């Protein structure tokens, strides 16, 4: 396989973009990424989107977006892996360039969630429709059951989960495109409305509109363009049972463990070599569980690590979600996996401004779908 690099990025503001369409926001992000990369064409495009059919009544999204981006007749394909759609789209672009089939590929992600759909119902399609959702469970409900099990097994506390939201809002306040550029206190999180016990409103990532795009290219192309880039040193994906109740453990996400093992092996590194990580904090408990399953903390110690500040940007052992994460930056589902790559790119090319982590050489992005039935992990290295 050939070496592959991320050479340009673009994203819209994340939030309630009521005045704008799914086409409009995708084209803005994609156009910015292409201009940023400084390339005169792209060979193909992949777009991650979980459910444009249910959210805005539009399928065949690859063709729609290629048309409005003005890049016909290149191949354009939508990639779907629930909330990991963006990560999966990036992986397809990576593989296409690594294989030698194309030199320059755009990987984007988009979701338009505020156009009036029953969002709770649409998101639940990422779980087992007939044996989970049939009984009324919601996504906050599924992660609440993981939280309850983690609290029961390891003594993880209400305060530890709240500390994840506090940290991510602190980081998100420094992100120009974040949905929430405001800090929250521990008391505000613990006092917010109950959604699915023990998870409260401020434990949950928001409903968002937004788009993100990156341009990936062969290392040869990247070097010729004479601009800053980050090399992709690992791409891994894993699956697990669709229903949470069929897992051997409710407190370990096996797809995350498995994808991480493959990614570390491909990059030939250990967890201690990673300088920062963007994780899929769709709910506060998810960040805690994933930080353990990626090997950064011992099982059951992820909550304590947040409270001790080990995951903060400043003086952190392993800064987690310097972008504000899904929690504060926002979670337009299909765009999330791409936005994580953009944060790594900015950190590794020293463009993250007030969010800049020290010694950012190796960054990891962990994107997952459903209650962990899909997980996509990428590792990028500064050049």
């Amino acid at each position: 396989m050939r070496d592959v690099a991320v050479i340009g990025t673009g994203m819209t503001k994340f939030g309630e973009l009521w005045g704008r369409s799914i086409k409009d926001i995708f084209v803005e992000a994609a156009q910015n990424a292409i201009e940023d990369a400084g390339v005169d064409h792209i060979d193909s495009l992949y777009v991650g989107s979980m459910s444009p059919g249910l959210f805005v009544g539009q399928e065949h999204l690859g063709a729609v977006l290629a048309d409005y981006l003005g890049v016909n007749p290149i191949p354009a394909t939508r990639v779907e892996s629930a909330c990991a759609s963006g990560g999966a789209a990036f992986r397809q672009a990576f593989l296409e360039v690594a294989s030698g089939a194309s030199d320059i590929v755009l990987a984007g992600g988009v979701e338009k969630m505020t156009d009036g759909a029953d969002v709770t119902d649409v998101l639940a399609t990422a779980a087992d429709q007939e044996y989970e959702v049939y009984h009324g469970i919601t996504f906050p409900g599924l992660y609440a059951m993981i939280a309850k099990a983690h609290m029961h097994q390891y003594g993880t506390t209400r305060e530890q989960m709240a500390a994840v939201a506090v940290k991510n809002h602190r980081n998100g306040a420094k992100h120009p495109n974040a949905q929430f550029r405001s800090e929250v206190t521990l008391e505000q999180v613990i006092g917010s409305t109950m959604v699915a016990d023990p998870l409260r409103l401020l434990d949950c990532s928001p409903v968002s509109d937004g788009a993100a795009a990156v341009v990936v290219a062969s290392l040869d192309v990247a070097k010729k363009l004479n601009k800053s880039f980050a090399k992709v040193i690992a791409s891994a994906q894993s699956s697990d049972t669709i229903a949470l109740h069929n897992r051997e453990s409710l407190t370990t996400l096996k797809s995350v463990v498995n994808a991480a093992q493959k990614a570390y092996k491909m990059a030939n590194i250990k967890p201690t070599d990673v300088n920062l990580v963007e994780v899929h904090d769709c709910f506060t408990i998810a960040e805690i569980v994933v930080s353990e399953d990626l090997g950064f903390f011992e099982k059951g110690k992820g909550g304590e690590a947040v409270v001790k500040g080990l995951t903060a940007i400043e003086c952190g052992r392993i800064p987690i979600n310097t972008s504000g994460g899904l929690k504060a930056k926002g979670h337009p589902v299909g765009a999330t996996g791409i936005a994580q790559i953009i944060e790594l790119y900015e950190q590794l090319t020293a463009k993250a401004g007030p969010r800049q982590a020290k010694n950012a050489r190796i960054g990891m992005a962990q994107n997952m779908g459903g209650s962990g039935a899909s997980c996509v992990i990428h590792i990028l290295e500064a050049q």
Partner: protein
Amino acid sequence: MITARYHREIPQRYRLEAGKCVKCGGVHFPPRRICPKCKGKAFETVRLSDEGRLVTFTVVRVASDKFSKQTPFAVGIVELNDGVRVTTQIADVEVDKLEVGQKVKLVFRRIQEDGKAGILCYGYKAILA
């Protein structure tokens, strides 16, 4: 829910019928065509135990439109005595007094109403044993 889709699930939902792998003995609910443990393809139909314990649970306070009239309601994962786990509502309880580990029993109940097809959908719910 489309009537055909509901109808074909009746054996599982009404009678708790599962598939037992002839090769390795693994019991799968709902029945499958391939055993994920040993890749076996032959199964016999068995009826699941209707008793078990609560492994984890939540109280859904914000639901999808279809379930919004039922909130708050408890949903949990129940491990039945034969080791099979199912996701189910826990009915007839004070939701704030539930605890992990409680013994429960599955009973036949109405689960949801479907506006479009106009059918009532039944299945299992757990009650405290």
